[in-house]
């Protein structure tokens, strides 16, 4: 079970800021595949991975990073701070 969080337009497309996801996905990419298969809104939010970033337990990571031991996964567009 992981906590999945969404920010900015990813949050808007999914329709909620966070949810508990029961998954055995080995990597972030595998988790994305599972989410995409769920409902249209997920397919839309995850349609272009190059427009997305991911953080695992609040650290930036790659989509091929393993999920073992991870408690919090966050998806969001490229940051626009400053």
């Amino acid at each position: 079970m992981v906590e999945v969080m969404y920010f900015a337009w990813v949050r808007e497309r999914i329709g909620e800021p966070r949810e508990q996801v029961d998954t055995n996905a080995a990597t972030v990419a595998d988790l994305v595949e599972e989410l995409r298969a769920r409902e249209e809104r997920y397919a839309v939010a995850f349609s272009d991975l190059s427009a997305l970033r991911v953080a695992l337990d609040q650290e930036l990571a790659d989509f091929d990073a393993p999920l073992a031991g991870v408690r919090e996964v966050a998806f969001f567009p490229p940051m626009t701070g400053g």
Partner: protein
Amino acid sequence: MDVRVQGDAFDVGAELSAFGQGDANVGAVVSFTGIVRDVAGGLDRMEIEHYPGMTEKAIATMVDKASARWGLADSLVIHRYGVMRPGDQIMMVATAARHRVAAFEAAEFLMDYLKSRAPFWKKEFGADGSSWVDAKDEDEDALSRWD
């Protein structure tokens, strides 16, 4: 090191009056202040979303790197989230070092990293509706000079 992520406005003048004082090794203080700009003349407000927890940690990591690389005597980052209007101050960075080159470079490094690596997202609201601000290629490119 002082890192603050907050909704409230801050006072650049008051922050800088107190910054880097009383350290005989500080010869140079650089500050940067980011302000909401009304680019096209139709901006009502900007809303900044952030990732509580990760934001503070990401900024602290950037400041640690800058402090080590440029031997900073002191450093300050304040970044707001929430609703801001044109003219409002969004964020500030200050660095204190022995020499001007170190203070300038450290402040620019922090700005480049905050732009593209701190988890903030800006949304603009105007007469024509709202839209998320896109990340700029030039901001991503700016990071490469610090490799």
